[in-house]
Protein backbone atom coordinates (compact mmCIF):
# COMPACT_ATOMS: atom_id res chain seq x y z
CA UNK A 1 0.00 0.00 0.00
CA UNK A 2 1.42 3.41 -0.88
CA UNK A 3 1.21 5.93 1.93
CA UNK A 4 -0.61 9.24 1.28
CA UNK A 5 2.63 11.21 1.52
CA UNK A 6 4.35 8.97 -1.02
CA UNK A 7 1.32 9.11 -3.28
CA UNK A 8 1.32 12.87 -3.10
CA UNK A 9 4.97 12.91 -4.16
CA UNK A 10 4.50 10.64 -7.14
CA UNK A 11 4.28 12.85 -10.20
CA UNK A 12 3.11 11.58 -13.54
CA UNK A 13 4.14 8.27 -15.00
CA UNK A 14 7.38 6.34 -15.18
CA UNK A 15 9.92 7.94 -17.56
CA UNK A 16 9.72 6.49 -21.07
CA UNK A 17 13.26 5.12 -20.79
CA UNK A 18 12.12 2.83 -17.96
CA UNK A 19 8.55 2.18 -19.00
CA UNK A 20 7.91 -1.35 -20.21
CA UNK A 21 4.86 -3.61 -19.96
CA UNK A 22 6.08 -5.73 -17.06
CA UNK A 23 4.12 -8.72 -15.84
CA UNK A 24 5.86 -9.30 -12.53
CA UNK A 25 6.95 -5.79 -11.58
CA UNK A 26 5.02 -2.67 -10.70
CA UNK A 27 6.90 0.59 -11.17
CA UNK A 28 6.23 4.00 -9.63
CA UNK A 29 8.20 7.14 -10.27
CA UNK A 30 8.76 10.12 -8.00
CA UNK A 31 10.41 12.74 -10.16
CA UNK A 32 11.26 15.12 -7.32
CA UNK A 33 13.49 12.52 -5.72
CA UNK A 34 14.54 10.64 -8.85
CA UNK A 35 13.08 7.65 -7.06
CA UNK A 36 12.06 4.49 -8.86
CA UNK A 37 9.84 2.38 -6.67
CA UNK A 38 9.61 -1.26 -7.77
CA UNK A 39 7.20 -3.78 -6.32
CA UNK A 40 7.65 -7.43 -7.23
CA UNK A 41 4.51 -9.46 -7.72
CA UNK A 42 5.36 -12.98 -8.85
CA UNK A 43 1.94 -14.18 -7.80
CA UNK A 44 0.81 -16.32 -6.21
CA UNK A 45 4.15 -17.81 -5.12
CA UNK A 46 6.53 -14.91 -4.68
CA UNK A 47 9.94 -16.28 -5.57
CA UNK A 48 12.79 -15.65 -7.97
CA UNK A 49 11.26 -17.31 -11.00
CA UNK A 50 13.14 -17.21 -14.29
CA UNK A 51 10.58 -14.88 -15.83
CA UNK A 52 10.52 -12.59 -12.80
CA UNK A 53 14.30 -12.37 -12.75
CA UNK A 54 14.40 -11.64 -16.47
CA UNK A 55 12.09 -8.65 -15.95
CA UNK A 56 14.09 -7.44 -12.95
CA UNK A 57 17.35 -7.63 -14.91
CA UNK A 58 15.81 -5.81 -17.89
CA UNK A 59 14.61 -3.05 -15.62
CA UNK A 60 18.05 -2.74 -13.98
CA UNK A 61 19.68 -2.67 -17.43
CA UNK A 62 17.38 0.22 -18.36
CA UNK A 63 18.50 2.12 -15.26
CA UNK A 64 22.16 1.48 -16.13
CA UNK A 65 21.65 2.63 -19.72
CA UNK A 66 20.19 5.94 -18.55
CA UNK A 67 22.74 7.27 -16.07
CA UNK A 68 21.55 10.08 -13.85
CA UNK A 69 17.88 9.33 -14.32
CA UNK A 70 17.34 7.15 -11.25
CA UNK A 71 19.00 8.39 -8.07
CA UNK A 72 17.09 6.20 -5.64
CA UNK A 73 16.02 2.63 -6.27
CA UNK A 74 13.51 1.15 -3.82
CA UNK A 75 12.34 -2.47 -3.84
CA UNK A 76 9.50 -4.12 -1.97
CA UNK A 77 6.94 -6.88 -2.46
CA UNK A 78 3.38 -6.58 -3.63
CA UNK A 79 2.39 -9.91 -2.08
CA UNK A 80 0.97 -9.66 1.43
CA UNK A 81 3.01 -11.42 4.09
CA UNK A 82 5.81 -12.49 1.77
CA UNK A 83 8.81 -10.53 0.57
CA UNK A 84 10.35 -13.42 -1.28
CA UNK A 85 10.56 -17.19 -0.78
CA UNK A 86 13.89 -17.23 -2.62
CA UNK A 87 14.61 -19.73 -5.32
CA UNK A 88 11.94 -21.36 -7.45
CA UNK A 89 11.86 -24.67 -5.56
CA UNK A 90 9.85 -26.51 -8.19
CA UNK A 91 12.40 -25.48 -10.82
CA UNK A 92 15.22 -26.71 -8.57
CA UNK A 93 13.50 -30.07 -8.14
CA UNK A 94 13.04 -30.30 -11.91
CA UNK A 95 16.68 -29.47 -12.68
CA UNK A 96 18.09 -31.69 -9.96
CA UNK A 97 15.99 -34.62 -11.12
CA UNK A 98 17.11 -33.95 -14.68
CA UNK A 99 20.72 -33.76 -13.38
CA UNK A 100 21.05 -30.59 -15.42
CA UNK A 101 24.04 -28.78 -13.99
CA UNK A 102 24.19 -26.33 -16.89
CA UNK A 103 20.73 -24.96 -16.15
CA UNK A 104 21.39 -24.88 -12.40
CA UNK A 105 24.52 -22.81 -13.04
CA UNK A 106 22.63 -20.60 -15.48
CA UNK A 107 19.94 -19.96 -12.85
CA UNK A 108 22.57 -19.25 -10.21
CA UNK A 109 24.43 -16.83 -12.45
CA UNK A 110 21.23 -14.92 -13.15
CA UNK A 111 20.78 -14.54 -9.39
CA UNK A 112 24.38 -13.44 -9.00
CA UNK A 113 23.99 -10.87 -11.76
CA UNK A 114 21.10 -9.32 -9.82
CA UNK A 115 22.94 -9.13 -6.50
CA UNK A 116 26.04 -7.87 -8.30
CA UNK A 117 24.03 -5.01 -9.80
CA UNK A 118 22.95 -4.03 -6.28
CA UNK A 119 26.50 -4.42 -5.00
CA UNK A 120 27.75 -1.98 -7.65
CA UNK A 121 24.74 0.36 -7.72
CA UNK A 122 26.66 3.25 -6.14
CA UNK A 123 29.06 3.17 -9.10
CA UNK A 124 26.02 3.87 -11.28
CA UNK A 125 24.98 6.80 -9.12
CA UNK A 126 22.08 4.92 -7.56
CA UNK A 127 21.28 4.60 -3.85
CA UNK A 128 19.33 1.43 -3.04
CA UNK A 129 16.75 0.76 -0.34
CA UNK A 130 14.73 -2.38 0.28
CA UNK A 131 11.63 -2.80 2.43
CA UNK A 132 10.85 -6.30 3.72
CA UNK A 133 7.30 -6.69 5.02
CA UNK A 134 6.97 -10.45 5.28
CA UNK A 135 8.77 -13.80 5.11
CA UNK A 136 12.00 -13.81 3.20
CA UNK A 137 13.91 -17.04 2.88
CA UNK A 138 17.13 -18.24 1.31
CA UNK A 139 17.67 -16.37 -1.94
CA UNK A 140 15.07 -13.82 -0.82
CA UNK A 141 17.31 -12.84 2.10
CA UNK A 142 20.46 -13.01 -0.02
CA UNK A 143 18.94 -10.60 -2.48
CA UNK A 144 18.34 -7.86 0.12
CA UNK A 145 21.78 -7.93 1.73
CA UNK A 146 23.64 -5.93 -0.95
CA UNK A 147 21.15 -3.03 -0.68
CA UNK A 148 22.54 0.14 0.88
CA UNK A 149 19.63 0.38 3.31
CA UNK A 150 17.70 -2.65 4.52
CA UNK A 151 14.43 -1.95 6.33
CA UNK A 152 12.33 -4.71 7.91
CA UNK A 153 8.86 -4.35 9.33
CA UNK A 154 8.72 -5.95 12.77
CA UNK A 155 6.70 -9.04 11.86
CA UNK A 156 9.04 -10.00 9.00
CA UNK A 157 11.06 -13.16 9.44
CA UNK A 158 14.08 -14.38 7.52
CA UNK A 159 16.72 -17.05 7.35
CA UNK A 160 18.72 -19.44 5.25
CA UNK A 161 16.93 -22.82 5.53
CA UNK A 162 18.90 -24.50 2.72
CA UNK A 163 21.06 -26.63 5.02
CA UNK A 164 17.91 -28.42 6.19
CA UNK A 165 17.73 -30.08 2.79
CA UNK A 166 21.48 -30.54 2.40
CA UNK A 167 22.15 -27.43 0.35
CA UNK A 168 23.53 -24.00 1.14
CA UNK A 169 22.58 -20.53 0.01
CA UNK A 170 24.94 -19.99 -2.92
CA UNK A 171 24.14 -16.56 -4.30
CA UNK A 172 26.13 -14.33 -1.98
CA UNK A 173 24.85 -15.32 1.46
CA UNK A 174 28.31 -16.00 2.86
CA UNK A 175 29.98 -12.95 1.35
CA UNK A 176 27.28 -10.43 2.25
CA UNK A 177 26.51 -11.85 5.70
CA UNK A 178 30.17 -11.96 6.67
CA UNK A 179 30.65 -8.37 5.53
CA UNK A 180 27.60 -7.03 7.33
CA UNK A 181 27.53 -9.17 10.47
CA UNK A 182 30.81 -11.03 10.76
CA UNK A 183 31.97 -14.60 10.36
CA UNK A 184 30.39 -15.99 13.53
CA UNK A 185 26.93 -14.73 12.64
CA UNK A 186 27.25 -16.04 9.08
CA UNK A 187 28.31 -19.43 10.43
CA UNK A 188 25.43 -19.51 12.87
CA UNK A 189 22.82 -18.44 10.36
CA UNK A 190 23.86 -20.49 7.35
CA UNK A 191 24.94 -23.70 9.07
CA UNK A 192 21.96 -23.86 11.43
CA UNK A 193 19.19 -23.07 8.95
CA UNK A 194 17.47 -21.16 11.76
CA UNK A 195 14.97 -18.41 11.14
CA UNK A 196 15.23 -14.97 12.69
CA UNK A 197 12.90 -12.20 13.62
CA UNK A 198 13.45 -8.69 12.33
CA UNK A 199 14.76 -7.58 15.72
CA UNK A 200 17.18 -10.50 15.88
CA UNK A 201 18.51 -9.55 12.46
CA UNK A 202 18.86 -5.94 13.57
CA UNK A 203 20.93 -7.03 16.57
CA UNK A 204 23.18 -8.89 14.13
CA UNK A 205 23.55 -5.78 11.92
CA UNK A 206 22.07 -7.54 8.91
CA UNK A 207 19.16 -5.14 8.94
CA UNK A 208 19.65 -1.38 9.20
CA UNK A 209 16.25 -0.47 10.60
CA UNK A 210 13.20 -2.23 12.04
CA UNK A 211 9.94 -0.34 12.02
CA UNK A 212 6.47 -1.21 13.21
CA UNK A 213 4.20 -3.02 10.79
CA UNK A 214 2.63 -0.50 8.45
CA UNK A 215 5.36 2.08 9.01
CA UNK A 216 7.66 0.78 6.27
CA UNK A 217 6.48 3.15 3.57
CA UNK A 218 7.19 6.22 5.68
CA UNK A 219 10.55 4.75 6.66
CA UNK A 220 11.47 4.50 2.98
CA UNK A 221 10.64 8.13 2.48
CA UNK A 222 12.65 9.11 5.54
CA UNK A 223 15.69 7.27 4.18
CA UNK A 224 15.42 8.69 0.68
CA UNK A 225 14.78 12.24 1.91
CA UNK A 226 17.72 12.09 4.31
CA UNK A 227 20.11 10.70 1.69
CA UNK A 228 19.01 12.94 -1.21
CA UNK A 229 20.69 16.21 -0.07
CA UNK A 230 23.99 14.39 0.49
CA UNK A 231 23.66 11.81 -2.27
CA UNK A 232 27.04 12.32 -3.99
CA UNK A 233 28.95 12.09 -0.74
CA UNK A 234 26.93 9.13 0.46
CA UNK A 235 27.49 7.21 -2.78
CA UNK A 236 31.21 7.98 -2.74
CA UNK A 237 31.37 6.75 0.84
CA UNK A 238 29.52 3.57 -0.08
CA UNK A 239 31.92 2.94 -2.98
CA UNK A 240 34.81 3.40 -0.55
CA UNK A 241 33.06 1.12 1.94
CA UNK A 242 33.00 -1.64 -0.65
CA UNK A 243 36.65 -1.00 -1.49
CA UNK A 244 37.42 -1.49 2.19
CA UNK A 245 35.56 -4.79 2.33
CA UNK A 246 35.43 -5.97 -1.26
CA UNK A 247 33.29 -8.77 -2.62
CA UNK A 248 34.24 -9.94 -6.08
CA UNK A 249 32.01 -11.14 -8.87
CA UNK A 250 34.37 -14.07 -9.29
CA UNK A 251 33.86 -15.24 -5.71
CA UNK A 252 30.09 -15.06 -6.18
CA UNK A 253 30.32 -17.15 -9.36
CA UNK A 254 32.61 -19.68 -7.68
CA UNK A 255 30.05 -20.11 -4.89
CA UNK A 256 27.27 -20.59 -7.45
CA UNK A 257 29.25 -23.28 -9.24
CA UNK A 258 29.74 -25.11 -5.95
CA UNK A 259 26.06 -24.64 -5.15
CA UNK A 260 25.04 -26.19 -8.48
CA UNK A 261 27.41 -29.14 -8.00
CA UNK A 262 26.07 -29.66 -4.48
CA UNK A 263 22.48 -29.48 -5.72
CA UNK A 264 23.15 -32.41 -8.04
CA UNK A 265 23.99 -34.58 -5.03
CA UNK A 266 20.62 -34.02 -3.34
CA UNK A 267 18.89 -37.27 -2.50
CA UNK A 268 15.23 -38.18 -2.81
CA UNK A 269 14.87 -37.45 0.91
CA UNK A 270 16.37 -33.97 0.44
CA UNK A 271 14.09 -33.28 -2.50
CA UNK A 272 11.08 -34.44 -0.50
CA UNK A 273 11.99 -31.91 2.20
CA UNK A 274 12.26 -29.26 -0.50
CA UNK A 275 8.86 -30.33 -1.78
CA UNK A 276 7.43 -29.99 1.75
CA UNK A 277 8.63 -26.41 1.78
CA UNK A 278 7.23 -25.82 -1.69
CA UNK A 279 3.89 -27.21 -0.53
CA UNK A 280 3.95 -24.93 2.48
CA UNK A 281 4.59 -21.96 0.20
CA UNK A 282 1.58 -23.03 -1.81
CA UNK A 283 -0.57 -23.14 1.34
CA UNK A 284 0.55 -19.64 2.29
CA UNK A 285 -0.17 -18.42 -1.24
CA UNK A 286 -3.63 -19.90 -0.87
CA UNK A 287 -4.27 -17.71 2.14
CA UNK A 288 -3.39 -20.12 4.93
CA UNK A 289 -2.00 -18.60 8.11
CA UNK A 290 0.87 -21.06 8.11
CA UNK A 291 3.42 -21.26 5.37
CA UNK A 292 7.04 -22.10 4.67
CA UNK A 293 8.26 -20.56 7.92
CA UNK A 294 6.11 -22.89 10.00
CA UNK A 295 7.11 -25.84 7.81
CA UNK A 296 10.78 -25.05 8.40
CA UNK A 297 10.08 -25.23 12.12
CA UNK A 298 8.51 -28.63 11.64
CA UNK A 299 11.37 -29.86 9.46
CA UNK A 300 13.83 -28.72 12.10
CA UNK A 301 11.86 -30.58 14.71
CA UNK A 302 11.76 -33.69 12.55
CA UNK A 303 15.41 -33.69 11.63
CA UNK A 304 17.39 -31.90 14.28
CA UNK A 305 15.50 -32.24 17.52
CA UNK A 306 17.88 -31.83 20.38
CA UNK A 307 20.77 -30.49 18.38
CA UNK A 308 20.04 -26.91 19.22
CA UNK A 309 17.86 -27.35 22.26
CA UNK A 310 20.25 -25.28 24.32
CA UNK A 311 19.42 -22.39 22.06
CA UNK A 312 23.02 -21.21 22.27
CA UNK A 313 22.96 -18.54 19.65
CA UNK A 314 25.89 -16.57 20.92
CA UNK A 315 23.51 -13.80 21.86
CA UNK A 316 22.90 -13.84 25.58
CA UNK A 317 19.39 -12.47 25.45
CA UNK A 318 18.35 -15.32 23.14
CA UNK A 319 19.86 -18.23 25.13
CA UNK A 320 17.53 -21.01 26.05
CA UNK A 321 14.68 -19.71 23.96
CA UNK A 322 14.26 -23.01 22.18
CA UNK A 323 15.11 -24.71 18.96
CA UNK A 324 14.72 -21.72 16.73
CA UNK A 325 14.46 -19.02 19.34
CA UNK A 326 10.78 -18.69 18.58
CA UNK A 327 10.23 -17.88 22.22
CA UNK A 328 11.84 -14.56 21.51
CA UNK A 329 9.21 -13.66 18.97
Amino acid at each position, binding site marked *: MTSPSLRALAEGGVPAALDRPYKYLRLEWTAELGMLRVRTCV*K*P*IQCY*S*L*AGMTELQRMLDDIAENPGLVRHFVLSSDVAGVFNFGG*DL*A*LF*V*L*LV*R*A*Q*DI*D*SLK*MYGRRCVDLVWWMETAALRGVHTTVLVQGDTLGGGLESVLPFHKVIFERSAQAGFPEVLFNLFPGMGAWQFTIRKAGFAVANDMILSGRLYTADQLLRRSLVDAVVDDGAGEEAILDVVRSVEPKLRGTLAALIAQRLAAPITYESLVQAVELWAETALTLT*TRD*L*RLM*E*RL*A*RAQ*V*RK*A*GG*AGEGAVEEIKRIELDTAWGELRGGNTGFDEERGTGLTAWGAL
Partner: protein
Amino acid sequence: MSKFFADLVIRTDEARRAFETHPVVLDAVAHGMPLPRYRTLLLELYHVVWHFNPVCAAAASRLTDSHKQVRYFLYEHMQEESGHEEWVRNDLEAVGVPASDTAGHTPSAFTQALVGYNYWAADRANPCSVLGMLYTLEVIASVYGGPFASAIKESLLLEGERGVSFINSHATMDAEHMAELRVVLNTLEDAPSREAVIGAALVNFHHFTRIIEQV
Protein backbone atom coordinates in the same frame (compact mmCIF):
# COMPACT_ATOMS: atom_id res chain seq x y z
CA MET B 1 24.91 -24.31 -30.04
CA SER B 2 23.46 -24.16 -26.54
CA LYS B 3 22.19 -27.30 -24.89
CA PHE B 4 18.57 -27.72 -25.82
CA PHE B 5 17.28 -28.94 -22.47
CA ALA B 6 18.20 -25.62 -20.84
CA ASP B 7 16.45 -23.76 -23.66
CA LEU B 8 13.35 -25.94 -23.24
CA VAL B 9 13.26 -25.29 -19.49
CA ILE B 10 13.53 -21.54 -20.00
CA ARG B 11 11.02 -21.25 -22.83
CA THR B 12 8.39 -23.38 -21.12
CA ASP B 13 8.99 -21.99 -17.64
CA GLU B 14 6.02 -19.65 -17.66
CA ALA B 15 3.74 -22.46 -18.87
CA ARG B 16 5.04 -24.70 -16.07
CA ARG B 17 4.44 -21.97 -13.53
CA ALA B 18 1.01 -21.26 -15.00
CA PHE B 19 0.17 -24.89 -14.29
CA GLU B 20 1.77 -24.82 -10.85
CA THR B 21 0.07 -21.61 -9.80
CA HIS B 22 -3.38 -22.33 -11.17
CA PRO B 23 -5.76 -21.98 -8.18
CA VAL B 24 -7.11 -25.51 -8.60
CA VAL B 25 -3.62 -27.00 -8.75
CA LEU B 26 -2.48 -24.88 -5.81
CA ASP B 27 -5.41 -26.07 -3.77
CA ALA B 28 -4.93 -29.69 -4.79
CA VAL B 29 -1.23 -29.68 -3.87
CA ALA B 30 -1.91 -27.90 -0.58
CA HIS B 31 -5.05 -29.67 0.57
CA GLY B 32 -5.69 -32.64 -1.68
CA MET B 33 -9.10 -33.24 -3.23
CA PRO B 34 -12.51 -34.57 -2.17
CA LEU B 35 -13.03 -38.18 -3.18
CA PRO B 36 -15.40 -37.56 -6.14
CA ARG B 37 -12.97 -35.14 -7.76
CA TYR B 38 -10.00 -37.44 -7.21
CA ARG B 39 -11.94 -40.27 -8.84
CA THR B 40 -12.69 -38.04 -11.82
CA LEU B 41 -9.05 -37.01 -12.07
CA LEU B 42 -7.90 -40.64 -12.08
CA LEU B 43 -10.48 -41.49 -14.74
CA GLU B 44 -9.13 -38.72 -16.96
CA LEU B 45 -5.57 -39.75 -16.17
CA TYR B 46 -6.38 -43.31 -17.18
CA HIS B 47 -7.00 -42.18 -20.73
CA VAL B 48 -3.86 -40.05 -20.86
CA VAL B 49 -1.80 -43.04 -19.71
CA TRP B 50 -3.67 -45.49 -21.96
CA HIS B 51 -2.83 -43.44 -25.05
CA PHE B 52 0.74 -42.64 -24.00
CA ASN B 53 2.40 -45.61 -25.68
CA PRO B 54 0.31 -45.45 -28.87
CA VAL B 55 1.31 -41.79 -29.27
CA CYS B 56 4.95 -42.72 -28.73
CA ALA B 57 4.58 -45.55 -31.25
CA ALA B 58 3.04 -43.20 -33.80
CA ALA B 59 5.96 -40.83 -33.37
CA ALA B 60 8.54 -43.62 -33.51
CA SER B 61 7.07 -44.89 -36.77
CA ARG B 62 7.41 -41.44 -38.36
CA LEU B 63 10.93 -40.61 -37.20
CA THR B 64 13.55 -40.78 -39.91
CA ASP B 65 17.01 -42.20 -39.42
CA SER B 66 18.33 -38.71 -38.82
CA HIS B 67 16.63 -38.97 -35.44
CA LYS B 68 17.02 -42.65 -34.78
CA GLN B 69 18.38 -41.95 -31.28
CA VAL B 70 14.93 -40.55 -30.43
CA ARG B 71 13.29 -43.64 -31.90
CA TYR B 72 15.43 -45.96 -29.77
CA PHE B 73 14.72 -43.82 -26.73
CA LEU B 74 11.00 -44.17 -27.39
CA TYR B 75 11.29 -47.97 -27.76
CA GLU B 76 12.87 -48.22 -24.31
CA HIS B 77 10.46 -45.76 -22.78
CA MET B 78 7.41 -47.56 -24.16
CA GLN B 79 8.75 -50.79 -22.67
CA GLU B 80 9.00 -49.16 -19.26
CA GLU B 81 5.58 -47.54 -19.44
CA SER B 82 3.82 -50.62 -20.78
CA GLY B 83 0.87 -51.65 -18.61
CA HIS B 84 0.94 -48.59 -16.36
CA GLU B 85 -2.69 -47.84 -17.16
CA GLU B 86 -3.39 -50.90 -14.99
CA TRP B 87 -1.82 -49.06 -12.05
CA VAL B 88 -4.32 -46.26 -12.55
CA ARG B 89 -7.13 -48.81 -12.79
CA ASN B 90 -5.96 -50.39 -9.51
CA ASP B 91 -5.92 -46.98 -7.83
CA LEU B 92 -9.42 -46.35 -9.12
CA GLU B 93 -10.60 -49.64 -7.64
CA ALA B 94 -8.93 -48.69 -4.34
CA VAL B 95 -11.02 -45.52 -4.21
CA GLY B 96 -14.24 -47.29 -5.15
CA VAL B 97 -14.43 -47.18 -8.95
CA PRO B 98 -14.95 -50.65 -10.47
CA ALA B 99 -13.01 -51.57 -13.61
CA SER B 100 -16.23 -51.63 -15.64
CA ASP B 101 -16.84 -47.94 -14.82
CA THR B 102 -13.28 -47.08 -15.80
CA ALA B 103 -13.69 -48.87 -19.13
CA GLY B 104 -16.99 -47.12 -19.79
CA HIS B 105 -15.79 -43.63 -18.90
CA THR B 106 -15.78 -41.09 -21.70
CA PRO B 107 -12.91 -38.69 -21.16
CA SER B 108 -13.60 -34.98 -20.99
CA ALA B 109 -13.20 -32.74 -24.01
CA PHE B 110 -9.96 -31.45 -22.48
CA THR B 111 -8.47 -34.94 -22.21
CA GLN B 112 -9.57 -35.71 -25.74
CA ALA B 113 -7.96 -32.47 -26.87
CA LEU B 114 -4.68 -33.39 -25.15
CA VAL B 115 -4.58 -36.92 -26.52
CA GLY B 116 -5.83 -35.86 -29.95
CA TYR B 117 -3.25 -33.10 -30.21
CA ASN B 118 -0.42 -35.47 -29.34
CA TYR B 119 -1.50 -37.97 -32.03
CA TRP B 120 -1.83 -35.16 -34.56
CA ALA B 121 1.52 -33.59 -33.68
CA ALA B 122 3.32 -36.93 -33.90
CA ASP B 123 1.64 -37.85 -37.16
CA ARG B 124 1.23 -34.58 -39.05
CA ALA B 125 3.45 -31.92 -37.50
CA ASN B 126 6.82 -33.25 -36.34
CA PRO B 127 7.35 -36.64 -34.66
CA CYS B 128 9.91 -35.10 -32.28
CA SER B 129 7.00 -33.21 -30.71
CA VAL B 130 6.36 -36.40 -28.71
CA LEU B 131 9.32 -35.36 -26.57
CA GLY B 132 7.38 -32.23 -25.60
CA MET B 133 4.57 -34.48 -24.34
CA LEU B 134 7.06 -36.58 -22.40
CA TYR B 135 8.73 -33.52 -20.92
CA THR B 136 5.45 -32.06 -19.69
CA LEU B 137 4.11 -35.30 -18.24
CA GLU B 138 7.40 -36.10 -16.52
CA VAL B 139 7.74 -32.60 -15.08
CA ILE B 140 4.22 -32.84 -13.70
CA ALA B 141 4.86 -36.33 -12.31
CA SER B 142 8.36 -35.85 -10.91
CA VAL B 143 8.01 -32.30 -9.58
CA TYR B 144 4.39 -32.12 -8.49
CA GLY B 145 3.38 -35.78 -8.23
CA GLY B 146 5.03 -36.36 -4.84
CA PRO B 147 3.48 -33.38 -3.02
CA PHE B 148 0.12 -34.05 -4.69
CA ALA B 149 0.15 -37.71 -3.63
CA SER B 150 1.00 -36.64 -0.06
CA ALA B 151 -1.88 -34.18 -0.06
CA ILE B 152 -4.30 -36.78 -1.41
CA LYS B 153 -3.25 -39.36 1.19
CA GLU B 154 -3.74 -36.80 3.96
CA SER B 155 -7.06 -35.52 2.73
CA LEU B 156 -8.59 -38.93 1.95
CA LEU B 157 -6.90 -40.77 4.83
CA LEU B 158 -5.46 -43.36 2.45
CA GLU B 159 -3.00 -45.89 3.83
CA GLY B 160 0.31 -46.73 2.22
CA GLU B 161 0.24 -46.68 -1.56
CA ARG B 162 -3.43 -47.59 -1.85
CA GLY B 163 -5.13 -45.25 -4.27
CA VAL B 164 -1.99 -43.25 -5.05
CA SER B 165 0.36 -45.93 -6.38
CA PHE B 166 0.45 -44.57 -9.93
CA ILE B 167 1.10 -40.95 -8.98
CA ASN B 168 3.50 -41.76 -6.16
CA SER B 169 5.56 -44.28 -8.07
CA HIS B 170 5.84 -42.01 -11.07
CA ALA B 171 7.00 -39.18 -8.86
CA THR B 172 10.08 -41.27 -8.10
CA MET B 173 10.38 -43.20 -11.35
CA ASP B 174 10.07 -40.14 -13.55
CA ALA B 175 12.96 -38.58 -11.71
CA GLU B 176 15.19 -41.12 -13.45
CA HIS B 177 13.24 -40.67 -16.67
CA MET B 178 13.84 -36.93 -16.51
CA ALA B 179 17.61 -37.40 -16.51
CA GLU B 180 17.32 -39.79 -19.47
CA LEU B 181 15.00 -37.40 -21.29
CA ARG B 182 17.49 -34.54 -20.82
CA VAL B 183 20.17 -36.63 -22.52
CA VAL B 184 18.05 -37.40 -25.58
CA LEU B 185 16.73 -33.83 -25.82
CA ASN B 186 20.28 -32.53 -25.89
CA THR B 187 20.93 -34.62 -29.01
CA LEU B 188 18.40 -32.54 -30.99
CA GLU B 189 20.32 -30.08 -33.11
CA ASP B 190 17.88 -29.02 -35.82
CA ALA B 191 15.66 -26.02 -35.21
CA PRO B 192 12.39 -27.56 -36.52
CA SER B 193 12.63 -30.47 -34.07
CA ARG B 194 13.51 -28.18 -31.19
CA GLU B 195 10.63 -25.83 -31.98
CA ALA B 196 8.25 -28.81 -32.26
CA VAL B 197 9.25 -30.02 -28.80
CA ILE B 198 8.78 -26.58 -27.26
CA GLY B 199 5.44 -26.09 -29.00
CA ALA B 200 4.17 -29.49 -27.86
CA ALA B 201 5.30 -28.89 -24.28
CA LEU B 202 3.42 -25.59 -24.19
CA VAL B 203 0.23 -27.20 -25.52
CA ASN B 204 0.51 -30.13 -23.11
CA PHE B 205 0.97 -27.85 -20.09
CA HIS B 206 -2.03 -25.84 -21.25
CA HIS B 207 -4.31 -28.83 -21.84
CA PHE B 208 -3.23 -30.65 -18.67
CA THR B 209 -4.02 -27.54 -16.65
CA ARG B 210 -7.51 -27.48 -18.19
CA ILE B 211 -8.00 -31.18 -17.35
CA ILE B 212 -7.24 -30.59 -13.68
CA GLU B 213 -9.25 -27.36 -13.68
CA GLN B 214 -12.46 -29.10 -14.75
CA VAL B 215 -12.39 -32.19 -12.51
